[in-house]
């Protein structure tokens, strides 16, 4: 059986990240985050948004959903997962991006503290601002806590609307899991969902990986998602 890490790629490929499949309970602060993201792209909100939150809260999902949303409006967007781009020359990678309508930087922490990257991001920030373009940034920490050495960059990061993406509580995680299951055509009842949430690591990425495994197994064995089946499949 594949490991969850490998599966996670499959999951993100299959379930395209959209605002609709991001579980944000009504009236929650995460719902505000989605509204802020929508308004940003619609041109009604701030030009610069900074999202932060613990691993697994869905920062990457939100950034990609916002990219899709922008593309649907025929905007030119570039999404950059900085964690995977640390080996590149920042000047070259970021050059000229202010010509686009929007730039999304995911995983800012990966390059924080690197002088060349910080300088290049500082220049990109200024260029985007001068050109009136949109910038969306995500990191696990608030700009204050992030290890940014260049004070000029740090204060600019503090200039935008900074929104914390909150982790879901266990009830909401259960709901999110049930909804994702429904979207994939699986029937996952409350009892079973609660069983899963209480027994596996409760990071949303991990939970969806488990769901993915259950999806495959239930298709292969033509079984419904019952507690005994879940127990056996996930080896709980």
């Amino acid at each position, binding site marked *: 059986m594949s490991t969850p890490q490998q599966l996670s790629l499959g999951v993100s*490929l299959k379930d395209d990240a959209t605002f609709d499949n991001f579980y944000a309970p009504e009236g929650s602060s995460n719902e*505000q985050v989605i509204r802020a993201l929508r308004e940003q792209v619609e041109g009604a*909100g701030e030009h610069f948004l900074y999202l932060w939150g613990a691993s697994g809260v869905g920062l990457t999902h939100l950034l990609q959903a916002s990219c899709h949303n922008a593309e649907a409006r025929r905007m030119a967007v570039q999404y*950059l997962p900085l964690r995977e781009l640390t080996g590149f*020359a920042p000047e*070259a990678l970021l*050059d000229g991006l202010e010509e686009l309508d929007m730039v999304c930087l995911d995983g800012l922490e990966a390059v924080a503290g690197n002088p060349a990257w910080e300088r290049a991001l500082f220049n990109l920030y200024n260029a985007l601002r001068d050109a009136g373009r949109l910038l969306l940034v995500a990191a696990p920490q608030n700009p204050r806590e992030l290890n940014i050495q260049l004070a000029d960059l740090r204060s600019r990061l*503090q200039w935008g609307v*900074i929104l914390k993406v909150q982790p879901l509580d266990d009830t909401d995680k259960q709901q999110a899991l049930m909804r994702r299951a429904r979207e994939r055509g699986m029937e996952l009842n409350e009892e079973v969902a609660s069983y899963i949430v209480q027994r596996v690591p409760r990071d949303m990425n991990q939970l969806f990986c488990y769901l993915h495994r259950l999806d495959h197994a239930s298709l292969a064995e033509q079984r419904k998602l019952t507690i005994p089946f879940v127990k056996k499949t996930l080896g709980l």
Partner: protein
Amino acid sequence: MSSLREELPSQQFNTWIRPLKIDEEAEADRLRLLAPNRFVCDWVCEKFLERITELAKHYQDGPEFSIEVGVGARTAPRTSRPAPSPAAPVRQSHTSNVGANSERPVAPPPAPKPAPSPAPETDSGVEGGLKHKDNLNRGFTFNSFVEGKSNQLGLAAARQVSENPGGAYNPLFIYGGVGLGKTHLMQAVGNALINKNPNAKVIYLHSERFVADMVKALQLNAINDFKRYYRSVDALLIDDIQFFAGKERSQEEFFHTFNSLLEGGQQIILTCDRYPKEINGLEERLKSRFGWGLTVAVEPPELEMRVAILMKKAAQVAVDLPHDAAFFIAQRIRSNVRELEGALKRVIASAHFTGRPIDVELVREALKDLLALQDKQVSIENIQRVVGEYYKIKIGDMLSKRRSRSVARPRQVAMALAKQLTNHSLPEIGDAFGGRDHTTVLHACRKIKELEEEDADIREDLKNLLRSLTT
């Protein structure tokens, strides 16, 4: 595209393939893909072009056609979005698969170009760099600038310069920490000059831009155009001059530009994050010249001014911000004006989403993550440690019964800061300082407040300590 999507991990797909646009103006026998910049273009060619070509052949039964990748952001004129300027597509075909190289000239073409017209354009919305562009933000005016004790000297100097450019205050050198309004002041002068004389040729730019433009000019053998351009201005405003550090060729060029402007009685305004003499990696001759005119400092804004800034910002966007709510924000956000503005934007967003009016309660909720962070950062232990290091005394001494002045004064400073920066009660603070009574804490706070008014050294100490504890 959907085939590639299944083949590639989603991160790779999202990063490299998704941003590609089809150039709709290319001829029918060609499929031209546009990448957002040179780098993405090179990368796609190197890693994916072969596969894209294969797939295209697979799906296309018709006549042979070629695929190429170029650089360009726009595929078709877009009218739906009120973007500031629909910049023309920058076209540059891919010629070889060279890797990352930041030295190579990249699109778009370099901005500096001599502006021969006697009446230069000052339209900041025109892109493309062929016309003179002042780069000024029209919102940065003297009217929108909030005056306070910490910046009044800078403001007075800037006003003087705007009334008498090229006069005694040349260059005007404004220095201070980040986010304190240096750029605003500088641009206010530029805007005032243009208001007074719409034909005035004013250029604002960041020092990194000056360097980048110069590098491009050198590569394109256009350095003489570059020189002529920058020497022809009435006022040259360069921001964050500290970024010139270590760039000798740029310093050399700037040195000559600087001299030429000064001789011609053209105004120069520079900003920097520190005093000229303290800029490491800058030539001595530049440092000394920077001091020839007037050097003024802007300091972090005091509480009243932070409140005033918030009120003004809120008024600008027609948001009703009660004074007590502004006060609440200003008390808690001390580091710089950008963070203050960011916090206000966050509060306005919350009010907007919840439909509630802004009051202290809403502010508390909107900023709770930020404030929690602050509470966490500024603990009594933290204050004791920072104060101890500052005065070079041991924590043990601070908590001891010793009453010699060299220990007692720092202890009082630490107590006063603990009261100011934490939510602990006075008895709790007393406890944390070796089990002292809360009246001792109270006495310390009064004493320090008194000293702050009459003793410049203590005032300076407090300012430094506050800054290192809250930023």
